[in-house]
């Protein structure tokens, strides 16, 4: 019981105002969840949910299609938000983004391989619905392994070195995706294009259950590093002298971000800007300490993604707007404003 309670120590580092914001964001997350599962091609009223007949079409839509999709959107948003926040902390760079270390590019390459070359090289039995997520996660895992070896266990040469490796890996993966785009047929090209713009349309219970478990546990594993990330802002040598095991911290943040970003990209495609923008919004609202920033970014990212997905479903129904377009449309102006402001300083 004590171990369980001591997990919530991070709340002690929050100011009163931050606590208020944090609880407000949690409530917001659940409000967006309920609104998202209520609206769409079929509309549900919250108090009706329990009274539907077992086999009615409404119930099928709600439980088989709507709820998995909204859950996936919420958790992918949370993953991108928290990994963006922790990577910005680790790199001490406000423009860091989960895409920066090359993991999402690796996952995208894996997915593009399946979309263009098909599941020809997979066995007939196990992979069918799992072929694409499996290949995307393998791509992400490959990038993590490469990063690990090039940086000698994340310990070598400091963080700038790791950033440069990430850029090189991104370039390599882009070449791979480019080649696949070039050789793809008409319908594969369409599949690839829509996939890179992101969608939660592929959500079903059997695909999202493993992902949700992985995401929840990884996020819970990340949050306790918040205080160490605060100290790291003083600079690597200073943090080291204050007793932080820098290499262990880097390992933890990179691995956990890579896992949840890899899983998210595998299931929903490339969704831009959430990882970059959400931590900044959360900082603007409540402050910069990571004990507040990490969990709040998760809840805010989830809320934002669920509302973007809601818009993507209802804007031009029966067709869908790719959700990555909506998050980028919301994120890009903010990004510009950020660049503009940082130049004035």
């Amino acid at each position: 019981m004590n171990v369980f309670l001591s997990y919530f120590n991070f709340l002690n580092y929050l100011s009163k105002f931050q606590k208020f914001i944090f609880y407000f964001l949690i409530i917001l997350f659940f409000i967006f969840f309920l609104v998202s599962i209520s609206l769409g091609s079929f509309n549900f009223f919250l108090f009706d949910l329990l009274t539907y007949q077992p086999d009615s079409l409404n119930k099928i839509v709600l439980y088989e299609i709507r709820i998995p999709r909204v859950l996936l959107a919420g958790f992918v948003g949370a993953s991108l938000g928290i990994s963006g926040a922790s990577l910005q902390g680790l790199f001490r760079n406000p423009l860091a983004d989960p895409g920066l270390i090359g993991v999402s590019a690796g996952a995208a390459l894996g997915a593009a391989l399946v979309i263009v070359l098909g599941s020809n090289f997979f066995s007939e039995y196990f992979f069918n619905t799992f072929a694409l997520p499996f290949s995307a996660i393998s791509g992400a895992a490959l990038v993590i392994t490469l990063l690990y070896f090039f940086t000698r266990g994340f310990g070598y040469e400091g963080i700038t070195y790791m950033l440069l490796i990430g850029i090189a890996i991104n370039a390599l993966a882009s070449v791979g995706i480019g080649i696949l785009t070039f050789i793809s047929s008409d319908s594969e090209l369409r599949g690839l294009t829509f996939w890179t713009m992101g969608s939660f349309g592929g959500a079903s219970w059997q695909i999202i259950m493993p992902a949700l478990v992985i995401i929840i546990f990884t996020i819970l594993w990340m949050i306790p590093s918040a205080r160490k990330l605060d100290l790291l802002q003083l600079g690597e040598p200073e943090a080291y002298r204050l007793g932080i095991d820098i290499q262990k911290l880097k390992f933890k943040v990179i691995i956990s971000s890579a896992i949840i970003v890899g899983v998210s990209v595998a299931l929903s495609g490339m969704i831009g800007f959430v990882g970059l923008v959400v931590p900044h919004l959360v900082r603007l609202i409540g402050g910069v300490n990571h004990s507040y920033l990490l969990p709040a970014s998760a809840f805010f990212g989830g809320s934002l993604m669920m509302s973007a997905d809601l818009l993507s479903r209802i804007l031009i129904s029966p067709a869908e707007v790719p959700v990555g377009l909506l998050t980028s449309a919301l994120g890009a102006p903010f990004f510009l404003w950020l660049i503009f402001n940082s130049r004035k300083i």
Partner: protein
Amino acid sequence: MLGDFILHLGGIQNMVFKKAAFFLLIAANYLPSECDKSKNPNKIVIAGGSLTEIVYDLKEEEKILAVDVTSNFPPEVKDFPSVGYVRALSTEGLLSLGPTLILGEEDMGPPLVLDQLKIVGVDIRVIKDDFSSSSILSKVECISEIIGAKKINTKRLINNLKEKINVLETNIKKNNRAMTILLILGLQGTSPIAAGHSTSGHGFINLLGAKNIMEDVEGWKPISSESILMKNPDIILVTKRGIRSFKNDEAFSNHSSIKFTNAAQNKNVFSLDGMSMLGFGPRTIETAIFVSENLINQ
């Protein structure tokens, strides 16, 4: 990655603009004389699967020099050199083959390459298509005229096609119920990509005398799973290539967005070869007959 992503989106926009500009160019240059006889139709490069099919059916295949990658029927066309993808032809690659005539579908491009080829003096013809049974007939007549095919072969092919169109129309009358169709191009980890209006898929649905549930949307667009259930199509058509990530057709029918539709409940989910359904060559009518017969026999 961010930068690449933006560039990638930019690229899509650019393609749309290029395509629009290209159609204008075609309209301006080729409309008056598009089906006149070509001066020297003995070395033909074909960019478009349906055109290759028609040239074969006219028994003029010895005039073919090379084809593009969308030409996959009859199987022996694979022996011809390939000029690549119909929208991304290359000037030098084409010229090195020494063609005298290039036949292409409306999506042939890019425009710059076509301009360069025109300057060199290659006869380029773009065959129009509005995705209907009558446009298949007019494509046959147009190509026959351009390449100077034998009258008897042309007549035989036209009569054959007209007969098949009659069979198709009788089948549709026999079926005698209003039906709705969803035509899916592919389904790869995202929402299904379905045919809206102004697509070959919409044309194929019209051939079957049915109503497209996506007719309010233009082009090929993702459709959300719940909208499929909401619209509840009677028939779902899907390209074989688009569902190869599923174990078999049955696994596709059990996908959560398909399983509860009328189409899946009544086993009216058909997976068909993409080119034979959407190419709008002679095979398209046969494919439509195949679907309509399945519907009658229930």
